[in-house]
């Protein structure tokens, strides 16, 4: 469960988050959309404490992320993060990318961590690629390794920061399919994305952000068929052709 309350964030004089409110219940999939510069990625990065905030609060599974004394290293083990540009470790194989955090952070025995990583990679269709280095994989394969890497920590929440926007069109589907499968298993997910088909099909709630604020949030059918905010109507008319 994620509760975002009145979150304010500045870069110098630039106000990027302007009082954001959003709730994500357990097992919910929330897709955040909106024009670039709206603060979507920044918001996502404040949820696991990658970015500090200047006001408001974010509570993940009962832990106040930005409170003094919060053990972020511990909290982040419960929050998987998937990046736009994958950020795989280039000096490690796919398998090692997936096992390094379980082994070093959670102190899980290597054999056990590898067994689990192989299971995850196989489920994501990467059985033959386990011993390849990231540079030997396509973008879609790299992003699936990144999803496996996040899942290996047994997170309670998964955050996706534009997971398909750096991919070639024909690779987008394989990543979205992996995310759909995850949503089907009841994972709590927050996805920053412009994949409206994915939002329509998988999301429990779609949020529209602009100028550091959530302008509208609604279940997908309502969001797409009957948006209330004129800016949302305009935005949808431009991206839904």
């Amino acid at each position, binding site marked *: 469960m994620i509760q975002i309350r009145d979150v304010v964030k500045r870069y110098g004089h630039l106000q990027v988050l302007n009082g954001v409110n959003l709730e994500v219940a357990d097992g919910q999939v929330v897709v955040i959309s909106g024009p670039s510069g709206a603060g979507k990625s920044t918001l996502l990065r404040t949820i696991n404490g990658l970015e500090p905030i200047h006001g408001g609060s974010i509570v993940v599974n009962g832990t106040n992320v930005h409170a003094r004394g919060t053990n972020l290293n511990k909290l*982040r083990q419960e929050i*998987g993060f998937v990046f736009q540009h994958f950020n795989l470790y280039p000096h490690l194989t796919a398998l090692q990318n997936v096992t390094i955090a379980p082994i070093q952070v959670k102190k899980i025995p290597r054999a056990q961590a590898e067994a689990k990583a192989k299971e995850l990679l196989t489920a994501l269709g990467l059985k033959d690629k386990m011993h390849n280095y990231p*540079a030997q994989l396509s973008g879609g394969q790299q992003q699936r390794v990144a999803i496996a890497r*996040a899942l290996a920590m047994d997170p309670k929440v998964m955050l996706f920061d534009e997971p398909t926007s750096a991919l070639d069109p024909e690779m987008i589907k394989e990543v979205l399919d992996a995310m759909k499968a995850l949503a089907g298993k009841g994972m709590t997910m927050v996805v920053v994305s412009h994949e409206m088909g994915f939002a329509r099909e998988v999301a429990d709630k779609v949020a529209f952000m602009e100028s550091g604020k959530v302008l509208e949030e609604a279940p997908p059918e309502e969001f797409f068929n009957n948006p209330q905010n004129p800016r949302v109507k305009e935005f949808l008319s431009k991206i839904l052709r």
Partner: protein
Amino acid sequence: MIAGYTMDWRVITEYLPVLLYGVVLTLRLSVMAIIVAIVVGVFAGLCRISRNPIISFLATAYVEFLRGIPLLVFLMFIYFGVGSFVNLDVQVASVFGLGVFAGAFVAEIVRAGIESIPKGQMEAARSSGMSYLQAMRFIILPQALRRILPPLAGQFIALIKDSSLVSVISGKDLTLQARNVIIATFRSFEVWLFTAALYFIMTFALSQLSHALERKFKIEH
């Protein structure tokens, strides 16, 4: 011959043990100085990227100051200058002087190597629950090391060559041995040429070693 100098290479065979002992002295001195340079340099390099302004200022001051003065002056200052207050063994002064001097260059190499790793690597590591130190140890430094290796080897080759300067403060090394042989024999041409060859063998070996390591650690991007 011009100036009436006739070459006589028997000096080399006769004094070979003395000169080879000089190689041992120079290697020992260089290895110890390299260890000091790595310890001081990695520490100062990490301090330079510290978010604490005082720590990074002190590290920057060390790097800028030592890179801006001649090694010979620094060695003189350590051995004769600092040596006026505390009793300094010439070998200790040599190792310390060379190591701390090269450390300033190592610090810059380490800093540049770490900063060349994309930010997303640290973010991915921290997002998976690693502490800053774990992220450095398992993700950043292994990648940075591969980029650091070639310039570091160049720095250590320079250190082997620069170590000849310690002979000026009477530090025992190959150059001092060569000078002693010449004082005894007056065979300047033969001894200096042979000494140059000995230095070249040492630096060339190190350069080959670095190429081999580079190939071994290479990662595709």
